[in-house]
């Protein structure tokens, strides 16, 4: 199954980018988890272990011929859906949310893997081309169902961040595969009509919650406080940063969850504009390379599959950085390869694995 030609088309430079980002992530995590006594924190060790597992998984995803993904697209999707229901009933509760399934001493979040499963399922569905004008709304009812089922389950957990990512991936793919212009207008019209209607149905406190979500400064004691601290952290980094292990904002506990959602603030504080530009550049390289993989692919399935993976990486990167800088609502969306978290690292590595997979096979068949 593994063709020698695969290796000749493997993009070693991109692998270099991935490894570089992962190393920066580990370094960053080390900086603010270290207790100054020279011992490594369990958080750091766990992330190293996950990174090892992640690289193996990436490799595996890259080498399995993507035809198999097309064959098993729907079963994979429904297995993940079943796991989400299982989480709903028997999941482990951490910080008030039910997201994890425990297997031995490791626990993982099916919602993370659902992102990949949704991409595969949508690629399978859209691989049958529409007519010249594009897909009609009626044809799109099944993909909408694919979106709705996991989103509802994930919102119930509650995990707003992952649900938003699923929705963004879905609509990115929708725009990519071409939807009928009239359908697109209708969809936008329905959306525009639903917003005021839904708004009027909400209770006062729910409205307030959404407003603070959109504008954290309305809640100076909660989200607004975190946001201003995040901005202080980023801004105080300046051009050159405070230096490795020299950050203060994150270490003093001014930021909630600095190792996941606000990881970028920690990075910006210590490495400044220079360090952040390098990291942003690496992400941009990864994303632009991903887009090239998409248009070089030989069939609809692999094109949509790789496009889904690129859009996932893009939205995570963009929203996370934007949120930390106060350009966007505060929502728990982690930064690929930098944020702590095993399941998230796995789904990111699978996404990159998909890109390698499609890229290597662009001259085959």
């Amino acid at each position, binding site marked *: 199954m593994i063709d020698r030609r695969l290796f000749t088309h493997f993009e070693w430079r991109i692998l270099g980018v991935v490894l570089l980002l992962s190393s920066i992530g580990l370094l960053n995590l080390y900086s603010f988890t270290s207790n100054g006594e020279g011992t490594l924190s369990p958080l750091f060790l766990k992330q190293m272990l996950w990174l090892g597992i992640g690289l193996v998984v990436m490799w595996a995803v890259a080498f399995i011929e993507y035809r198999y993904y*097309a064959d098993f697209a729907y079963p994979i999707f429904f297995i993940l859906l079943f796991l989400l229901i299982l989480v709903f009933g028997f999941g482990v509760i951490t910080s008030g949310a039910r997201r994890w399934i425990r297997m031995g001493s490791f626990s993982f979040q099916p919602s993370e893997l659902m992102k990949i499963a949704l991409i595969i399922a949508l690629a399978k569905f859209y691989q049958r081309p529409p007519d010249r004008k594009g897909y009609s709304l009626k044809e799109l009812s099944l993909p909408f169902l694919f979106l709705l089922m996991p989103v509802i389950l994930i919102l119930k957990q509650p995990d707003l961040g992952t649900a938003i990512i699923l929705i963004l991936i879905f609509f990115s793919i929708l725009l990519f595969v*071409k939807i009928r212009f009239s359908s697109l207008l209708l969809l936008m019209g329905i959306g525009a009509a639903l917003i005021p209607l839904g708004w009027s149905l909400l209770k006062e406190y729910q409205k307030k919650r959404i407003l603070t979500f959109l504008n954290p400064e309305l809640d100076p004691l909660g989200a607004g406080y975190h946001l201003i601290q995040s901005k202080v952290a980023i*801004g*105080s980094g300046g051009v050159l940063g405070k230096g490795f292990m020299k950050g203060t904002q994150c270490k003093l*506990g001014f930021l909630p969850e600095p190792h996941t959602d606000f990881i970028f603030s920690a990075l*910006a504080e210590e490495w400044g504009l220079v360090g952040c530009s390098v990291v942003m550049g690496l992400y941009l390289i990864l994303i632009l390379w991903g*887009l090239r993989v998409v248009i070089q692919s030989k069939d*609809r399935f692999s094109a949509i599959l790789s496009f889904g993976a690129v859009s996932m990486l893009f939205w995570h990167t963009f929203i996370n950085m934007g949120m930390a800088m106060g350009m966007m609502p505060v929502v728990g969306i982690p930064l690929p390869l930098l944020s702590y978290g095993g399941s998230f690292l796995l789904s990111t590595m699978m996404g990159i694995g998909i890109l390698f997979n499609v890229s290597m096979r662009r001259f085959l068949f």
Partner: protein
Amino acid sequence: MIELNSQRLEDFKERYPYFKIFAGVTFLLLFLHLWYLQVFKGSEFRRLSETNCIRIREQIADRGMILDRKGRILAHNRPSFEVFLVPEDSKRNPEVLGKVSTLLHLPLEEMEEKLRREKKRPAYRPIKIKSDIDWDQLCLLESNLIHLPGLQVDVIPRRFYPYGTLASHLIGYLGEIDENELKERRDQKYRIGAFIGKSGVESLWERDLKGVDGGRQVEVDALGREIRQLGRIESIPGHNVILTIDLDLQRVAEEAFEGKNGALVAMDPKTGKILAMVSKPSFDPSIFARGVSPAEWKELLEDPFSPLQNKAIQGQYPPGSVFKIVTAIAGLETGAIHPHTQFHCNGTFPYGNRSFRCWKEKGHGAISLHRALVESCDVYFYQVGLKVGVDGIAYYASKLELGKKTGISLSHEKTGTVPSTSWKKKRFGVPWYSGETLSLAVGQGYLNSTPLQLAQLISIIANGGKIYVPQLVERVENLYGELVRECPPVEIGKVDISEETLRIVREALRGVVHDPHGTGAGCALKGFQIAGKTGTAQVIRMPDDFKRGQLYRLPLKYRDHAWFVAFAPYEDPKIALSVLVEHGGFGAVAAVPIARKLIEAFFHLPPSTPEKGPKDLEEEEYD
């Protein structure tokens, strides 16, 4: 394997440039914003970060008041001055600790220990050093505040109960939120160290009483002094909870228990609303509001009379002769007896190889139902019990809501026990002995009930069979006196017992108080019709040769519990009550006078001496 489709790939190529440009532009925007933060505003943010000078000053919401049915305040808040230290601001000036220590007469080690314990928490969070400082200390601190960086004095509302121990079990108390409560109430924004209702109304109506905390985001200088306010959220005071109890009646009830332990429940039989609820000994909830000391806590827990327990809903005692009401109903309803059925009582009743005694050694002679209830003849009810059988009695007991929670909105209510053959099989794995039916018929043995259950029982008899859920809260109002929630009476059904049976029993209960040999004669008031039933709950089984008159020679903890249940007025009941005096001896002696005082107070009758003097009571001993 499916055939992969390669049609219309040119669509994708067509859109590729747009996606590429979109990605490029968003990253450019990100970069520009980053540049704005780090270069353009970099020096400002660097200054903010170097002083770490943004703080949150919390403003705790005023907790709602608890009022009696006439609007008199049972719990409110008073301002308390509390001293906090922000470690982040004080660590640069280590001499602060020493100064505070001398000003407040606090041992330095104790303060250091407190700071050490909180080391894991963010350093900008204030840590409480001392609560409730007095006026002199406050003046001293305020005038020295400029030399004490990181020190902060806040005014915090503190719970205060103007009547001290009055109705403490019902009102409940506050305590610092613990980890489990924090987890359970994650959605409600409680902070570590917040006070939360731990028992009674304070706990069950927490959501209404709490209010919403507010606070301010401020910038402070290097000494921790406030420079400017960055944001503010006003706190919203909690709602007031108006109880069904009447302060005057409650006070009379508590005073009547002077020197005694036990419980009392008085309710309106037509609504189920609680008018007074006493559990003695009681405690002062104010000590919890300021944080109970380990020594005080230990004392409360180790007190043999368990002051923290609400005996009205948690104390489980055999109902004794009060239960004869149930046995009589079971007898009449099953047809085992009719009102004129006579049995003969000669003071003992031989059954099996034992002889069961009547409390009256000489016996009651030939006796029918009315007189058997009035004079509380044990032998009569032994025979009714045998005719009806254990399961028949249990059936009617649970119909009358015994053996299950009443559903009052107080936590940790106990169910009591109504034994039956299947219950005993399940619990002990052995069959029921028919001798035990005799004990059950007169309210002893495995049978257990709470004072609240017996108040509900007499209430059901009084109101003609309607079952109400006992209620403590009349309504909830907001700060401006506007109604937030009303609590109408909750009728959960009517007992399936005939009017005639209830009438016969009620008449007999009236006789208990008003007939010549009634055991409740101590409650008789001139020109006022009252119905009731006395009871004595055995704590230990008396040896066969034990003389009743020797009871007072027993150590207190072996003495019987005294019961009295009553309702008044007889024709149109407005109050139903149950009184339990722990180790009070006979119901007639210990419990009846308390009930009398309460009824007098409720109907504003002049205090009187009972028609039958205490002298008579001593001569004849009643059960």
